[in-house]
């Protein structure tokens, strides 16, 4: 019973990347319960307070954002009907949709937008705080118009690309009194979305049902959505096969199970619908360790890792070699592959290490480094083992230090007690949202997934700041190209692998994956065939 080799999997898998011709127009069927695998429980479910895929998978169906993305990945209005920006990028006006009500019956107005933007995005929402750093005020000339005013130019492209993830609106009348973080609505969300919250049993399940007076006519099609909490990946795969779970989002199953279910006619394993959620595997260097401060050592390390072999044999068809911090999927800002790359060349690696003065000592070991892998994600564990094995070949002994989530964050991002670290960098459709912060110096100690490498480059900082406020899209794209070329040359950290999250659907689900962030979006048009 030997599975097919990885190569033919690659061929079959890539087919899934091409846009699938729309199904023959079947008439959507009303009713049915969509069960979703909920891998890690979240503390709160309110997407306007916490920006993470774990929250969107639930909150994204109950609350709605100003904008969402359409099938081609362009911004489309949800709570906002139309919008226009001033040429200087300082004011952006949104015309809000009329006749929309919250689940508790109260009307949706611009006051809700103002409160959410100023009290939540600007003060609490992770990544929102940096994005809305220069937001001065939100004017509400009438109940259905919201005018965002900034003290420094906010490129319209950046704002429109960021709002689908960082633009969820919460009801002002629920959150205005008391501490926003403690508000019970955070675990029993009230929104304008197609599904109303019913019940949350910790450690077991979350249930939401159809919102009868949803503003889109006779939608949603589904009666109910049930999110089942299953921590163990193998158990979740077994429950999918037993039909107890219909959809496993964001690569929540193990790589082997995703491919196995992909081969099963009842299921489809694809990256379709996740193009908006790209992540790259990182290799972070700590410059406080003098050995790594030497550019030749960093380059030698890069050259000693056979990335294509690792991807083909360990990650399967859902990953491909990365070319830099901005992934190929980002049509607006991807600078193309002809950037400085580090192909697999152990001879070159050894020569660079010799040049750097690290002779091979006892047992052929030049020096020892600690590697801190992030304790989530099966691919991170495989990648850190592969690093240990590969660097061992060029005489660098790697000691993997396994910590749990809290320990990892404090050790790497607060105490900087690491040599190498590896984890995920999530690209959120615009470099300024959560990518350039990995390189921009000056982020406070302890802030995870930011530049904590003890490294600073004036020139790169300048490019980042300029690009962040450059209104002209063409100039902005050129600036980011310079940014990528600079960081790929200097190599403060390396992003060799690009992966898109994988969704595993039961084929009974129709209209699945019909936009680049489908798993996080509202599912108003999703329906279940019998």
């Amino acid at each position, binding site marked *: 019973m030997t599975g097919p080799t990885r190569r033919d999997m690659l061929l079959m898998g890539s087919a899934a990347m091409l846009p699938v011709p729309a199904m023959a127009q079947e008439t959507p069927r009303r009713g049915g319960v969509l069960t979703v695998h909920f891998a890690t429980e979240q503390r709160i479910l309110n997407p306007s307070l916490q920006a993470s895929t774990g929250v969107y998978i639930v909150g994204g169906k109950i609350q709605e954002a100003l904008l969402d993305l359409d099938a081609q990945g362009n911004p489309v209005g949800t709570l906002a009907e139309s919008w226009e920006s001033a040429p200087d990028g300082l004011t952006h006006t949104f015309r809000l949709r009329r006749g929309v009500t919250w689940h508790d019956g109260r009307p949706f107005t611009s006051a809700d937008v103002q409160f959410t933007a100023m009290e939540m995005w600007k003060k609490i929402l992770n990544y929102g705080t940096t994005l809305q750093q220069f937001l001065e005020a939100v004017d509400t000339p009438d109940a259905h118009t919201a005018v965002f005013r900034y003290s420094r130019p906010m490129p319209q492209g950046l704002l429109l690309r960021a709002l689908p993830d960082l633009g969820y609106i919460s009801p002002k009348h629920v959150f205005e009194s008391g501490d926003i973080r403690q508000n019970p609505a955070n675990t029993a969300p009230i929104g304008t979305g197609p599904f109303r919250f019913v019940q949350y049993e910790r450690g077991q399940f979350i249930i939401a049902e159809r919102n009868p007076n949803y503003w889109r006519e006779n939608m949603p099609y589904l009666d109910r959505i049930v999110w089942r909490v299953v921590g163990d990946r193998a158990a979740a795969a077994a429950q999918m096969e037993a039909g107890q779970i219909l959809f496993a989002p964001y690569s929540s199953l193990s790589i082997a199970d995703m491919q196995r279910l992909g081969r099963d006619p009842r299921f489809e394993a694809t990256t379709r619908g996740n193009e908006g959620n790209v992540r790259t595997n990182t290799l972070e260097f700590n410059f406080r360790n003098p050995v790594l401060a030497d550019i030749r050592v960093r380059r030698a390390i890069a050259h000693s890792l056979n990335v294509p072999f690792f991807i083909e044999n360990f990650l399967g068809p859902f990953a491909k070699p990365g070319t830099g911090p901005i992934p190929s999927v980002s049509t607006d800002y991807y600078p193309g592959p002809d950037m400085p790359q580090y192909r697999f060349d152990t001879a070159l690696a050894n020569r660079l290490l010799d040049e750097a003065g690290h002779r091979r000592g006892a047992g052929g070991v030049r020096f020892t480094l600690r590697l801190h892998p992030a304790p989530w994600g099966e691919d991170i564990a495989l990648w850190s083992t592969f690093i*240990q094995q590969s660097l061992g070949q060029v005489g660098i002994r790697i000691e993997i230090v396994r*910590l749990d989530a809290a320990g990892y964050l404090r050790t790497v991002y607060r105490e900087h007690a690491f040599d190498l670290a590896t984890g995920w960098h999530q690209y959120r459709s615009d470099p300024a949202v959560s990518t350039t912060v990995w390189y921009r110096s000056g982020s406070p100690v302890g802030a995870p997934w930011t530049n904590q490498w003890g490294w600073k480059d004036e020139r790169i900082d300048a490019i980042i700041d300029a690009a962040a406020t450059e209104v002209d899209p063409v100039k902005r794209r050129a600036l980011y190209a310079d940014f990528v070329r600079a960081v790929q040359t200097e190599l403060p950290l390396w992003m060799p692998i690009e992966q898109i999250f994988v969704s595993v659907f039961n084929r009974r689900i129709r209209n699945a994956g019909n936009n680049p962030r489908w798993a996080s979006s509202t599912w108003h048009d999703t329906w279940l065939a019998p």
Partner: protein
Amino acid sequence: MRALKAYLRSPPALIGSVILLAVLVMGIGAHWFYPGDPLGLAGRPLQWPGQNPRFPLGTDSSGRDIAAQLFHGARVSLLIGFVATSIAAMIGIAIGALAGFYGGAVDTALMRVTEAFQTLPNFLLLLVLVAVFGSTIETVTIAIGIVSWPPVARLTRAEFLTLRTRDFVQACRVQGLSDAHLILREVLPNALPPVIVYASVVMAVAILLESALAFLQLSDPNVPSWGNLIGLGRNVLRTEWYVSAIPGVAILMTILGVSLVGQGLNDALNPRLASGR
């Protein structure tokens, strides 16, 4: 001597010793059988046993040779077993001896501590110790040792309580010998046999605890332990179930060996059978 003869005659002891010997040979001879680094990249990952002659037992999801990890893993499991058991034995015997010999307030206090350790679920305490002190192989072994001493303490205390009032101990007291002499030279040698037999149980538990920790991804990743291999195999359980099955069988056989040897020791050292008045 008599106990050895009795030990070799009891069938469980023989089978147990053979199994344990095999595991010992695997552990000690690991570098001879599989010289390379067992965690090194040996070939394409997830090849079935027998599919590739170079890997009789196949490869795991990190492309490592399972057979190599089995041999090197034997060394790790036995090491953890022995070291953790000796830690547990040392703490257990010390506390049990003092509590059993002196009784009164000393006994109550020490028993409160033992009860505290036994009331608290030991795996939970193990989780906390590993979370606090990190999961290198040293901390894992010490943590297991710290968690498994209470039963040894209880057993030693029970033995000391009965032996302390025996005539030959009273005779030594009357001869003016110090408490230390009484504890170490008079009572302890007679209290040890059941404790030694119980050590086999502690060792079995220690190996199981390490594999459970590794299964929850809390053990030392730089060490080729069987538990790590089972944990790794968990992600490919449905397709390549052999990755978890093979180390599982290895753990089962080792503990079987250890328990059988323990049973054999019990028959040999058990006063009722051996001396027989």
